[in-house]
């Protein structure tokens, strides 16, 4: 089955806060939208792997997901804790241990295990360097033969 990839364009508007670096804002925004997506897929009863850059990044995702509004609660775990086969949503910076249909990619490249997934969620940040990396990922996905599309990420107040 062909893997479907959806790139969400992160809103430039939120980068107005001058005190925080743009890349930092992008990271936060991507994490936030990753959590929203995880919540969405969990409610469709789909198991999700959220792939992050490093340990600290994984813990940031974990922290935000745990603090999410209780109506959008997402049972999740970090790789290295929780049940053996993982919770409905698993977060890690390591290659996945179990097969899941959905990958949410928060890293700068397309991981080499990407073709295991039926559905991949990725993000296009507003910072130029990061945006360029996203373009590369977009291209890479095409080369993998995935069906790739993009749409704006919708800002939701939680």
């Amino acid at each position, binding site marked *: 089955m062909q893997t479907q990839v959806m790139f969400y364009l992160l809103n430039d508007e939120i980068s107005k806060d001058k005190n925080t670096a743009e890349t930092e804002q992008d990271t936060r925004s991507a994490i936030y939208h990753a959590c929203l997506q995880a919540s969405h897929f969990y409610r469709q009863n789909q198991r999700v792997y959220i792939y992050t850059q490093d340990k600290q990044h994984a*813990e940031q995702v*974990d*922290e935000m997901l*745990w*603090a999410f509004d*209780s*109506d959008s*609660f997402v*049972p*999740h*775990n*970090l790789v*290295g*804790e*929780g*049940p053996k086969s993982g*919770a*409905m949503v698993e977060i890690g910076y390591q290659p996945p241990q179990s097969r899941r249909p959905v990958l949410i990619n928060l890293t700068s490249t397309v991981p080499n295990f990407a073709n295991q997934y039926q559905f991949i969620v990725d993000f296009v940040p507003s910072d130029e360097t990061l945006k360029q990396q996203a373009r590369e990922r977009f291209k890479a996905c095409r080369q993998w033969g995935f069906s790739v599309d993009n749409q704006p990420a919708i800002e939701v107040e939680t």
Partner: protein
Amino acid sequence: MTEITTGTLSANIANQSATKSVNEVSHAFSESGALAKAIQGFSPRQAQTDMALDVAHAIENESSLIVEAGTGTGKTFAYLIPAFLSLNPKVPKKIVVSTGTKNLQEQLFHKDIPLIKKALASNAQVALLKGRANYLCNYRLAQYQDSRGQLDAQMLQDLVKVKTWANGTQSGDIGELVNVSEDSPIFPFVTSTLDNCLARDCPNYESCHLVRARQKASDADIIVVNHHLFFADMALKDTGFGELIPKAQVMIFDEAHQIGDIASEYFGEAFSSKQLVDLCTDVLQVHRSSLTDVKQLGLAAEKLQKTCQEFRLLFNYDPERGNWREKHKQPQFQQKFANLKTDLDFLYQVIKLCISRNEAIDNCFDRAVNLLAQYEVMTNVESFGMSFWYETTPRSVTLHQTPLTVSDKFNTVVKESGAGWIFTSATLAVDNSFDHFSKHLGLQGARQLMLDSPFDYQTQSQLVVPRYLPQANDKNRALKLAELAEPLIKASKGACFMLFTSYRVMNQVAEILASSIDNPLLVQGQMAKRKLLEQFIEADNAVLLATASFWEGIDVRGDKLTCVIIDKLPFASPDDPLLQARCEDARRQGGEPFSQIQLPQAVIALKQGVGRLIRDVKDRGVMVICDDRLVNKPYGQTFLKSLPDMKRSRDIAKAAEFLESLTE
């Protein structure tokens, strides 16, 4: 504020022609009302007034009401004021207020009620009624003085204090005896039990403190009782009583989350080897003091005593609970249990020959008859709809037969009472629903009201589930728990509880912490519970390690307690025989035991815990739950939606920062 029924109550009330009492209630809580005048700094709060109006409504219409009032809503006044205002000298009314513990009873009676009486200029008669074991028994005190053997120094001292106090006391409430320790072994000898009370045959009946207290209660407008007393009365478990409910027009239950289990207990039966041994002791006393000629009395009683001990020895050394049905199937248990019957029967036959020789032996005869009947209950282990379980203490075994559901019985009592029933607590709802509570007690038709706490939990508190916790059965779990506790204890400068589901892990953690931190460590089992708590409050920087059940009913205010670390979600032990029976029953009815029984029970327990950490608008604190099922299981949502909205984090370092900011 969330209201479950549609439409606000004020609207409802307007429709039903605003009555005098409702107007009075609104006025009492208003800016210029009685409360504002009597209490400095009182400001009207919508949630409190809403609850008071609903209570007034339930009293007036003799209907039922379930209210969850979050900590800090002021629910005590919200039910007491309408209760007092509903009193009318022309139409005598009786109101029963029942609460969880003796301490809470006393707080109501000595603190809250006097304040309200003053505010409302009420001259209502209020009575405090406790259980039988709280009242001095003059007859038993006299008996004890006559027949006691050698006493150790402490017992002798206590006896002298009791005697001195007994001469002067009006109420006979042993709570007045502040200089005798609560757990003094003297008390069983100077108070009565249902078994050994001679009731109307008692030579001291005229001066009986219990009878007087009951008389007072029966004459009062408002009676303050506790749940155990209430349900003992309701299930007619204390004879010559059963007088509270028929006479009352209003029943108010505070701490109502407890009454489901208490009701089950009282609608059930129990048979304890302690009752048998007590009977033997009393028979021996009669034999030695008056019926010295009947040698068989002594022999029969000693034989039964010995068999009781043997029966206890069949069970494990450590106190435990278990399934009596299963034990009853095993030959060795069956054999000893049958021996109990043989020996009890023999004792009964011997006592029978002594009937009418004096009151004491007649009382023993009645008890033997009752015990034989209860014995039969415990042999019919095949009865349906019942759980048969046992509970052991170091010296005794108690067998229980508990009905799996009390909803029919309780519902009948409520319906037939023609009274208004009000159930309130800070912890009744699970996932914003009262189903769990109302189904258990058959209260599906009751009006429901949910009032949020006025506290700002987001800034006052944190709920932390640490990352990378070891599995529940990991052998390094104790070490890991101690490691993550250390920075928190340092940050909070003590003022910390650690609660465990197992004694083993508790002791392991205690051992590790003893060498790694300087704070005084208080560990359950070192001394009596009350002593431990006193020391915890005195010490300022102490850490208390205890099992989870320790927490029930504990009240530590302010910065004395800022950090609570719990090793596991408070699910009841799956080995609990009553729980097993209820789950089995739910399964048979096509239900789901986990979501219907185990989960709601754990949610309520955890809610209680949070309520103890944050008791005031100024309280701050961190709750650390070392159980990642809260994060990775779908039912975590049920917990989160039921708990106050605390700031959630998984970061121990952040929690430590927060704690540090409190002690600066």
